[in-house]
């Protein structure tokens, strides 16, 4: 079978063991990523913003001055600290029930990130599986799946989501599930497109010509090529979901009203927009800030994960 004696050549090889090569690679890799981020500073900015949001979500109990649910009617409707009637005790003011805006904004990161992350997780994994099946098998199954996908994509998204949310009721799980499932078609479409492109490329045929089985081709060839586009798409969809959560919350269909979510805060603050504008403004700014960060990160990821860019890896 295999001739293990190295009788092929008298060529001088470098002598470095392969394992050493790889270790050098991992440390090198981190430095490589750092350099890539430095080259494209908007990506760095996006990462910083994103990390700050994650930090806020994780450290919320520690960095929030107050409990976000704590009502204090005596201190209600106080404007931000720098305004005329403001107070240092509430940096961003309070809402109509006396809850501290800053604390609620900080805790709001938890809802947004949870919705965004798990929603995208559901949508991308299921969407990728369906898209792979559709694109790789092709034929009538592909036609059937794509008909359904196109039908769903043709519906006005917000109307669709609102309709379902109204039926299911307000809870965090429901919001995650709604976004997770309604976003599947986008992932299906992108995955399928990539799979079709790969089939035309030729390396799938080449893999078959050395006897790779279908499952091997899917896991070792197709999926590694999908990671780039899917991760990029997932990033942008996550940002979209955060915006949509705000939209749902604004309509009163997101998480229950006591839970501090930016959408809920917007909804609450709308009626006071002319008199106590800070109640809606700061959650709004938080949404924009987070969305910007994620989108900048997504742009950077899209540029970086494109394997066709000719850059020296070592």
């Amino acid at each position: 079978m295999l001739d293990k004696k190295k009788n092929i050549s008298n060529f001088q090889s470098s002598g470095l063991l392969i394992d050493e090569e790889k270790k050098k690679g991992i440390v090198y890799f981190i430095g490589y990523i750092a350099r890539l981020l430095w080259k494209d500073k908007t990506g760095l900015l996006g990462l910083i913003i994103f990390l700050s949001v994650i930090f806020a979500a994780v450290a919320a109990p520690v960095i929030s001055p107050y409990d976000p649910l704590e009502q204090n009617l005596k201190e209600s409707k106080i404007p931000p600290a720098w305004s005329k009637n403001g107070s240092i005790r509430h940096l961003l003011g309070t809402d109509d029930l006396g809850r501290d805006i800053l604390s609620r904004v900080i805790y709001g990161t938890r809802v947004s990130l949870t919705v965004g992350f798990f929603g995208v997780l559901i949508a991308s994994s299921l969407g990728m599986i369906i898209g792979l099946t559709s694109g790789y098998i092709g034929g009538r199954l592909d036609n059937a799946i794509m008909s359904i996908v196109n039908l769903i994509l043709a519906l006005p998204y917000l109307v669709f989501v609102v309709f379902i949310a109204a039926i299911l009721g307000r809870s965090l799980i429901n919001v995650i599930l709604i976004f997770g499932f309604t976003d599947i078609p986008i992932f299906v479409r992108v995955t399928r497109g990539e799979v079709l492109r790969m089939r035309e490329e030729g390396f799938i045929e080449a893999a078959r010509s050395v006897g790779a089985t279908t499952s091997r081709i899917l896991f070792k060839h197709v999926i590694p090529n999908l990671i780039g586009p899917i991760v990029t798409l997932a990033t942008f969809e996550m940002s979209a979901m955060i915006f949509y959560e705000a939209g749902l919350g604004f309509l009163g269909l997101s998480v229950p009203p006591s839970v501090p979510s930016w959408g809920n805060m917007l909804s609450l603050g709308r009626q006071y927009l002319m008199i106590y504008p800070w109640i809606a403004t700061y959650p709004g700014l938080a949404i924009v800030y987070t969305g910007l960060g994620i989108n900048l990160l997504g742009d950077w990821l899209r540029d970086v994960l494109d394997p066709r860019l000719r850059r020296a890896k070592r």
Partner: protein
Amino acid sequence: MSKILTVHNLVIKFYTFDGIIHAINGISFDLEEGETLAIVGESGSGKTVTMKSLLQLLPSPPAKIEQGEAYFYFNGQRINLFTATESEINHIRGAKIGFIFQDALSALNPVIPIGKQIAESIETHLEVNKKEAQERAIELLESVGITGARQRYYAYPHQFSGGMRQRAMIAIAIACNPRLVIADEPTTALDVTIQAQILELVKKIQEKNKMSVIWITHDLGIVARLADRVLVMYAGVPVELAPVYDIYEHPVHPYTRGLLAALPKLGEKKKKLLSIEGTPPDLFTEPRHCAFAPRCRYWTERCWKENPPFIAVGKNHYVRCFGDIESRRPRKGA
């Protein structure tokens, strides 16, 4: 010398929206151990389709193997490549028959290091662990002439030049020491100096491993350099099959003669390059007569009525043509 491949009466059709394409209309040939067969023909003559059908690489909804058998002989066994099951043919692919694709850049996965793609074939077919597969892949890279193989193992396809990529493709094809390698115009996209190196490389490997080679090309220069026998294809049928010397010195079929006459020769000063008038037929109509008749200078009435059979005109020399070989006179004014 024993046969390792026999193809018999192969007919392949493609069922498309625009009609049925009669791609291959009856081809038979065989191959001995250690022999190099060159398959020559224009684009669309059916060279690649025939070869891919041997490994069941044709996409099966449009393509259909209407009839024919292809027997591959190894280890004293015989297997019909067309009726083999998916798992049987997977054992043949890569392990017993290797395939070199024409465009190395698109045949290689862009996100996987080249070394790993070579190791994949080894891991699939040979019972070795990952480390051994890695070592063998590095040996292979060295043997196909890629310097610094150990570092290059982790390089990506886009970091290689065209010639190096093609060498990597060759490494993948020969990784498990197959009995037969099918090379589909591997040097068409490369410049002549690299092409010469690749040809030398293949010859060297072939001699060392006693491998048979089927080389698809439209370059008669390569054929002269590499082939033991030559099969000329036109419009999905073989029109001439002969040892390489006979093809060049005594070509019989008008198409072969036309091809050779069209070669510009060094030192000859001619104002106009000779060509074969006309164009190949579109394959949507089932051929009821000789496919070359419209372009042939030696046609007879019979050529337009029936399909000529494959007849022997010399030792190991077959031609698909009516007409008298001895009295080859142009029919109409030269």
